């Protein structure tokens, strides 16, 4: 099953260094005398003295792998190519989005994830919704429960796709195309929602520090609610689905309203004029309420066809 990555996990993709697949034709002409002798020169001292001379390719333990000098040369060539490719990809990607900003959103730990999940499903008793700052930079999610992160939305998105596949499979309606369709539909709705939020925040000149990734994070939290509703729909049938839909909709609406209230409504300038101040808080309130009210509809829209 080929899951779309969409650039959310750069560290994971980079950690799997590609194994070098050298074309033997590349080394055929030169394989007669010289590289073999050079490599032999590397190997024999390595085997006899058991001391690393030439660097990474001398490994007395890996007899089978390094017995063939051509494979070793191929591996060196391949790793050079991989490093060049990696540098080029990093340079290109960092032109579009800064990796440091993205790393902030993935700096989570288990305690944060557990607390945040409980907060998403039961936010009514949480008292302090302020995002704490540490010398002008927002604290990472490890230190602050209220900070948005992108780890939970990413994981929830993938879990939702898997759950959708399972739900369709239980009803004998599964085929691999449906999985891709479900994934791209959910992704497109998220993109539309983030774009509409950005547009409305721009048009109403709301000066917040909400970046695109923040909005993406807050939009992605609804996947947790979707997972909960689909699970209870699968376990308890149609009644369980509607009960869980009502519960998680209220929870997500409350969560989004409280979180965005902190960011949008409280960023009013201190010296706003009398005539202007009456319009702006009202419009900002409309934005917050509309965002919160949109969540149950999209949760219902994206999950109802899974639970008949």
């Amino acid at each position: 099953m080929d899951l779309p990555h969409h650039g959310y996990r750069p560290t994971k993709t980079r950690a799997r260094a590609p194994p070098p697949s050298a074309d033997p034709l590349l080394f055929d002409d030169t394989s007669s005398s010289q590289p073999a002798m050079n490599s032999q020169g590397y190997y024999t001292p390595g085997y006899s003295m058991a001391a690393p001379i030439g660097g990474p390719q001398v490994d007395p333990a890996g007899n089978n792998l390094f017995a063939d000098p051509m494979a070793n040369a191929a591996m060196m060539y391949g790793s050079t190519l991989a490093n060049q490719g990696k540098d080029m990809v990093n340079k290109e990607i960092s032109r579009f989005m800064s990796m440091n900003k993205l790393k902030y959103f993935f700096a989570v730990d288990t305690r944060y994830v557990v607390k945040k999940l409980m907060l998403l499903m039961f936010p009514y008793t949480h008292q302090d919704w302020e995002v704490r700052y540490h010398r002008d930079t927002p604290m990472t999610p490890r230190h602050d429960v209220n900070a948005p992160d992108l780890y939970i939305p990413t994981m929830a998105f993938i879990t939702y796709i898997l759950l959708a596949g399972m739900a369709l499979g239980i009803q004998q309606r599964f085929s691999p195309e449906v999985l891709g369709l479900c994934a791209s539909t959910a992704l497109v709705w998220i993109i539309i929602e983030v774009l509409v939020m950005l547009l409305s925040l721009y048009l109403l000149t709301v000066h917040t520090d909400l970046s695109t990734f923040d909005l993406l994070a807050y939009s992605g939290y609804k996947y947790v609610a979707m997972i909960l509703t689909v699970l209870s729909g699968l376990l308890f049938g149609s009644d369980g689905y509607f009960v869980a839909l009502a519960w998680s909709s209220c929870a997500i609406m409350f969560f989004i309203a409280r979180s965005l209230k902190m960011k949008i409504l409280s960023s009013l300038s201190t010296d706003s004029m009398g005539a202007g101040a009456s319009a702006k808080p009202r419009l900002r309130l409309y934005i917050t309420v509309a965002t919160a009210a949109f969540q149950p509809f999209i949760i219902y829209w994206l999950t109802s066809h899974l639970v008949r």
Partner: protein
Amino acid sequence: MAFTLYSLIQAAILCVNAVAVLHEERFLSKIGWGVDQSVGGFGDEPGVKVQVMTLIRSVRTVMRVPLIAVNSVCIVLLLLFG
């Protein structure tokens, strides 16, 4: 409805094309949305209308040349592959 990423790209191209065909002096000035009517008061309150006008103007300026390329590619692809 089942969206694909391709339908999102199509919708985006159509919307940007729609914004790009709004002519400055033939249409926008006639309905009071021209660029000369947007220099408003100073203060920190541009207002929704001024923001919309600024947005339309900047989209038209920025996307004029890329739209030519994207539209040509779309036309060729649709002619070839239906």
